[in-house]
């Protein structure tokens, strides 16, 4: 049962991920990306990580992909096609990716037993309250330091993004030559 679900979800992820890089219309790529991310949210559910799955949907689908679509709206026209890859390029890509696949497959097939079985695995470990307790724990298992640093990171990103994206109004200009720039 769980294997069937896993295979279905994996196939879904792979199928849509392939569409992301092959579809000619870039908006369709973004939608396929969304579907692919939904698939990975499903994988998290299979792993009992409900919190991660929901965060995946909220952050990636409700945030990242929406902004990707915004960027597409602002930069392209409808019906504009991406430049299709030339045949030799596709060939090279196929060769390289099959090498990578063979490498990873061989690696995992041979060394699967070197994966640790400790760590977080039960449903309780992935629940919201457990995650919250780990994030705010000051003990050795706690992640309060990265949790706090992330807030600095976000603040910094907002400041930087505002600086880069801000339109230069006249009031801000000190020299006359930069006034034509908006």
């Amino acid at each position, binding site marked *: 049962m769980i294997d069937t679900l896993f295979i279905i979800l994996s196939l879904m992820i792979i199928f849509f991920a392939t569409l992301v890089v092959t579809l000619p219309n870039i908006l369709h790529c973004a939608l396929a990306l969304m579907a692919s991310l939904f698939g990975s949210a499903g994988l998290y559910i299979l792993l009992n990580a409900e919190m991660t799955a929901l965060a995946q949907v909220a952050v990636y689908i409700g945030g990242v992909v929406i902004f990707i679509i915004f960027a597409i709206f602002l930069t392209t026209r409808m019906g504009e096609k991406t430049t299709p890859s030339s045949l030799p390029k596709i060939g090279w890509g196929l060769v390289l990716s099959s090498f990578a696949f063979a490498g990873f497959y061989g690696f995992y097939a041979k*060394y699967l037993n070197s994966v640790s079985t400790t760590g977080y695995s039960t449903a309780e470990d992935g629940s919201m309250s457990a995650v919250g307790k780990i994030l705010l724990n000051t003990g050795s298992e706690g992640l309060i330091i990265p949790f706090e640093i992330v807030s600095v990171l976000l603040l910094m990103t907002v400041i930087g993004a505002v600086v880069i994206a801000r339109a230069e109004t006249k009031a801000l200009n000190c020299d006359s030559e930069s006034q034509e720039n908006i």
Partner: protein
Amino acid sequence: MLTFVTPDMLLPILALLVLSIDLFIESKNKTAILFDTAAAGVLLIIVLLFNLPHDQEFYYLTNYKVDGLRLLFKEIFAISLFFTILLGKGYARKNGNWRGILKYDSEFIALLIFCAFGMFCVVSAQELITLFIGLELATIPMYFLTAYYKKDQSSLEGAMKYIIMGSLTSALVLLGYSFWYGAVGCLRYEAILSFVQTNPDNPMFLAGAIFVFAAVCFKLAMVPFHMWAPDVYQAAPTPVTAFLSVASKSTAIAFVITLLYGPLAPIRHVFTYPLGILACITMTVGNLGAMRQYELRRFMAYSSIAQAGYIMLALVGNGKMAVPSIIYYLFIYLATNFCLFFIISVIGQKRPEEFASLRGLAKQSPALAGILVLCLFSLAGIPPLAGFTGKFMLFASAAEGGFYGLVIFAALNSTVSLYYYLLLIKEAYINKPEEDLESLEITFTQSFSIAILTLAVVILGLIPWFSSIITKIVG
């Protein structure tokens, strides 16, 4: 015991202070106020850092370590932050640079300070998540800062390249971490260390290490991942370039050292040969690339690629001298590079920062030309300057491990590098300018910084106790 992390905590507070000064204070010379406040604050942090006991270990909230090695790295970051702010001050005034005025001063300073805070986190981290977030915090501000000349197409292009390369790096780091987590089942250094001690040849873990070190090579601009560096160095405003070439590079080195001499210590020998080969290729490519440049910042990029090669060479030796020699060299590299960038900033006020702009410098300002020669000789490693001592220690550390072939190769490379450093000196002393030159203006900040840095370049190599102190702390 909170004093151990006071400098770290003061950094974000200082950034917020600068931002709020910009918000609330109305003044004609606000730019100067902002830069001076920031510089004073960073100076305070530097003093605090130097006053902390370097021979103790302290854990803040069990996962944030402060000890001698980490303090030394933090001092490097703080000092480079200090000089970057001073360097930036010159760019924020009118006629400060031919590319235009650097706007949004408070944000500029705040981003730099946040960046330094990220670097602090990288060295102090005791688990991989803090390490990763610190690394991001040290990198993301650089994307913004690289694009700070918004009017300049090349600036935006460089930032774009940097952000793509940087994202790839982050993805690689995370992929590596996921392998490590898969192998160990925990993200803390202690758990990783005990895991590596019991299974030193776990294939899953080694596969993860490959990814993480590929990412470090990106950060350090090691060959074959060095392509972004020249473009980004050229695109960024010069203070940012200086910060990139010193602090960012030191962060990547700190990243490697804290891992190799922390959780990965039992399998350090695995990395000897890959690092050695990479270091050799990197210094060669850096040196060959630098020969064909005519743009000063691009030139500095290739020069710093080569320097990264020399620094990585010390890690190959895998001996007691490795870490002290690297830190010693980083201090010297800091002084020399910043001195050079200050000279570039003086030259770049009215002319583009190119080799040709150096022409006539010896006549116009003999002192500046002399300092330029000192710095370049120091970078090339000519005795008795600091650069020589530093490079000597790096090579000695490699020799300690018995890699004499590598040392000879590096020494040859160092000789090659003398050629292109001399090219600059030739421009300054021999080549005649084509037209009459406008006079150079040097502000007080610039002359003050150049004086201090020159003193450091000369003296650091001559005083023997400096290196022995570092060895005592770290060794």
